[in-house]
């Protein structure tokens, strides 16, 4: 065979292979889009359908479906929805402002000052992300109730004329602010670390004080990071149910999430109206996500140049002990006080505390509430279920996120933009709304999904898809294409190169994504509320049940059990993934 003939056969072969590859790629993209459509688009459409009709599509069938915007009109003209919306904006707005102050302060302290114990402060700044919102809310009920709060009891004992009332919008703002500050911290700390200090030096050479430099140069330069963190913490607060549910209930303060839940709780329940409120909440969130994208891509804030630099460290002198004490105060507020409150409530027989002396009366303490919760077979079952759902979510969701991440970042197939969009969409859907949407979407379908742990797992996979893909993407981007190309040259196919090159190299990222999913899934409350059945009761739902069942002792005891379990799991996860899972553990409600 001469050379040209051999060349010709090769091209024919290549072309046939190309067509085959092209067909395979198309099938692959279609399959991924179908899965995402099934997981994300279909439930949202069902929700929209429910909001646009006055019948229940499941009970009445689609035959009597009447398109009407009556629900939206009813919702928009209902002054209570307006109130809930205003409360939501005040609580999340105020909370975000506080989160920015706290997050920015700590990122500056950690990155730019010589405050002692910076590693410790950095860890403390991230800690609140791991507290389930309902647990945080319950702890602050025990601490901050106007009549019986432990803080007020202590103030009285110290003869201080000081009283706090957390059953209020300001209480809500405070708890939101301190627990969601890590979002701002995450963004601003890395921006400060990557910033070239030459501009600051220039400002100081021109005679500006350190303080003036901070506000006229440093903060304006990292503005995109501040805005990103701000918008993200706002979005997360919008979707939280646990905190406003417990702090707002005693004084009848509603936000959108608690209002949606109440609508479904009345007799008769108003699911269509709830769907309409949910759509409004989704639109507000969607708008903010869009805004965040716009801020991130709109202008150039390049401060990182090609030359190497070290971030400057400001010598605070004696003031460094002041900045250190700020971190201690924060630790006290987000961890120590709430934990003490939960311990008191969990071990105390009754939460009637006459005065500070009675608080230390050891005869009042016992293991009664722990015995009671472990006497209830649902307790162990809910822990078992939560772990089972967590593992299912982690494995299936991790595999799917891997497929999506690989397709988006390592291939050039057409349609990957749509895949990216659909995988990011759930960011804009609060957990509670996903729960309602999934209930409507799945119960009507034949087959056994409803009542199994799969409906919970699928809802969680959809809900946390953006977080998982994000964590995985980082590790994909770190692997150079050369390595894959080398595998191809050595005769490996695409699957072969994934198996021999990508998977081993991306392993820490994959493990991080899976452990993240696992932790997120066992914490999740909002979307579980509508999807559990007798066999699939999970921990977070049972905790709410204990709370609504009106026994603070048992609620606190189970909160401690859950906190301990989460602590162990997160420790394990961290150890497995070497810290990579820390990025977004807080987005659950």
């Amino acid at each position, binding site marked *: 065979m001469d050379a040209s003939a051999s060349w010709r056969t090769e091209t024919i072969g290549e072309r046939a292979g190309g067509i085959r590859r092209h067909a395979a790629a198309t099938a692959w993209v279609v399959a991924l889009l179908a899965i995402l459509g099934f997981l994300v688009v279909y439930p949202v459409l069902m929700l929209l359908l429910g909001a646009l009709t006055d019948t229940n599509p499941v009970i009445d069938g689609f035959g009597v479906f009447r398109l009407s915007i009556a629900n939206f009109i009813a919702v928009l003209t209902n002054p209570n929805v307006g109130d809930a919306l205003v409360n939501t904006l005040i609580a999340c707005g105020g909370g975000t402002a506080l989160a920015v102050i706290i997050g920015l302060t700590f990122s500056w302290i950690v990155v730019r000052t010589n405050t002692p114990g910076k590693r410790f402060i950095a860890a403390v700044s991230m800690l609140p992300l791991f507290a389930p919102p309902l647990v945080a809310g319950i702890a602050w009920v025990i601490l901050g109730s106007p009549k019986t709060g432990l803080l007020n009891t202590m103030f009285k004992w110290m003869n201080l004329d000081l009283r706090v009332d957390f059953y209020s919008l300001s209480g809500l703002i405070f708890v939101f602010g301190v627990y969601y500050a890590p979002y701002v911290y995450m963004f601003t700390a890395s921006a400060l670390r990557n910033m070239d200090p030459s501009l600051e030096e220039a400002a100081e050479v021109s005679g500006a004080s350190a303080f003036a430099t901070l506000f006229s140069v440093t903060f304006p330069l990292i503005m995109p990071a501040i805005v990103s963190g701000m918008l993200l913490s706002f979005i997360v607060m919008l979707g939280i149910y646990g905190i406003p549910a417990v702090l707002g209930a005693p004084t009848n303060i509603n936000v959108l999430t608690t209002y949606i839940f109440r609508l479904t709780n009345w007799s008769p329940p108003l699911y269509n109206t709830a769907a309409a409120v949910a759509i409004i909440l989704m639109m507000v969130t969607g708008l903010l996500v869009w805004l965040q994208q716009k801020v991130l891509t709109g202008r150039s804030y390049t401060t990182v140049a090609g030359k190497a630099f070290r971030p400057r460290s400001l010598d605070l002198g004696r003031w460094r002990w002041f900045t250190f004490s700020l971190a201690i105060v924060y630790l006290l507020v987000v961890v120590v006080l709430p934990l003490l409150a939960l311990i008191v409530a969990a071990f105390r027989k009754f939460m009637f505390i006459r005065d500070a002396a009675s608080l230390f009366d050891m005869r009042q303490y016992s293991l009664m509430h722990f015995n009671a919760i472990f006497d209830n077979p649902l307790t162990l079952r809910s822990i078992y279920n939560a772990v089972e759902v967590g593992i299912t979510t982690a494995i299936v969701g991790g595999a799917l996120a891997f497929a999506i991440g690989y397709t988006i970042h390592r291939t050039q197939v057409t349609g990957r933009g749509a895949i990216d969009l659909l995988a990011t969409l759930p960011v804009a859907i609060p957990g509670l709304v996903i729960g309602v949407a999934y209930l409507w979407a799945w119960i009507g379908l034949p087959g056994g999904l409803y009542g199994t742990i799969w409906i919970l797992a699928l809802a969680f996979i959809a809900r946390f898809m953006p977080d998982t893909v994000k964590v995985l993407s980082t590790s994909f981007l770190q692997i150079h294409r050369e390595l894959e190309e080398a595998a191809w040259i050595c005769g490996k196919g695409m699957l072969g190169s994934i198996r021999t090159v990508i998977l081993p190299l991306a392993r820490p990222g994959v493990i991080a994504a899976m452990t993240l999913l696992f932790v997120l899934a066992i914490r999740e409350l909002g979307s579980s509320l509508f999807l559990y059945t007798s066999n699939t009761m999970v921990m977070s739902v049972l905790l709410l049940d204990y709370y609504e*069942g009106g026994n603070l002792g048992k609620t606190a005891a189970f909160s401690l059990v859950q906190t301990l379990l989460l602590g162990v799991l997160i420790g394990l996860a961290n150890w497995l993934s070497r810290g990579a899972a820390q990025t977004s553990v807080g987005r659950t409600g």
Partner: protein
Amino acid sequence: MMKKMMVAAALALGVSPALAQDFGSKELIDAANKEGRLVYYTANFAEVEQQVINAFNKRFPNIKVEMVRAPGGQLITRVKTEAAAGKLAADVVDHSDRALMAELVDLFQDYAPPNAGDYIPEAQISPKLWPRATLVWSIAYNTELVKNPPKTWMDLTKPEYNNKQIGQVFAASGGTTWTRIMFERQVLGEDYWKKQAATNPVLFPSGAPTSDSLVRGEISIAPLLYNAIYPKQKDGAPIKIFFAPEGAPVNPYATGIPKTAKNPNAAKLFLNWCLSLEGQTFMIKELGNLTSLKVAPVYPEGFDPKVVKVWLPKFDEYVKYHAAWVEEWNKTYGYRQ
């Protein structure tokens, strides 16, 4: 011959055949044991129902009761939605709001316990649905905080208890509360709500958080379902409970077995036991319920039938007035839905 031997064996074991008969035939018990489980939907509190299940399991240890507890409105939606999709998982549905259950009566199968004739007919809205639990309203106060306790329903309108000392469950929360506010209006007077609302009470979504708040001292006095507060008094909480002389509003539940029940025998046995003298006595003594049996085996602590008049709403009015009166109550108490 076989039967005689069994009776002899039963007598030898100290089990009276008459008592065994209370819960159903041997065939039923065998079939129930074979099914081995049942799914129980209830609107009552999980903690309370767990005790009922434990007591039932002392007698029938081989039948596992899987409980789904949800607040009234959610439970009804769950039943309706699941039934429409052909996926109703419940073998027993137990609900506090008889009006909501009345709409679903077609979902349920014919059922009557062995002691059906012992029950007050007015407590039932359908021959298929039974008053498994009968709850009664009382008034409770925190003894550490209230030095001059109220003695009647009318006392709850006194200005000395104003400014958030009293806790109230709001009207729309469900069947039991609706019974209480009907009682207040029909027995205590058309203007009772107005006078009571003038004390500026704290409003709660249900009885459980109200009783917890009372124990903690967030509020000092509250009308409460006896079974929501009695267990806490029993455990030693600083609480006193009394039944007021004007009357004790009573709300019988409506409980039935769906036609689609997968474990109908276990369901029947469970309801037979709950409705039996043993089951009702347990619920009165341990949980603080009343009973809809014509002759009550015992009364809860502090309840003297010679002094306290039980008040049962007329069912047609219970259905007819609901929407309008709840709305009026909301206005009077400034509670906005």
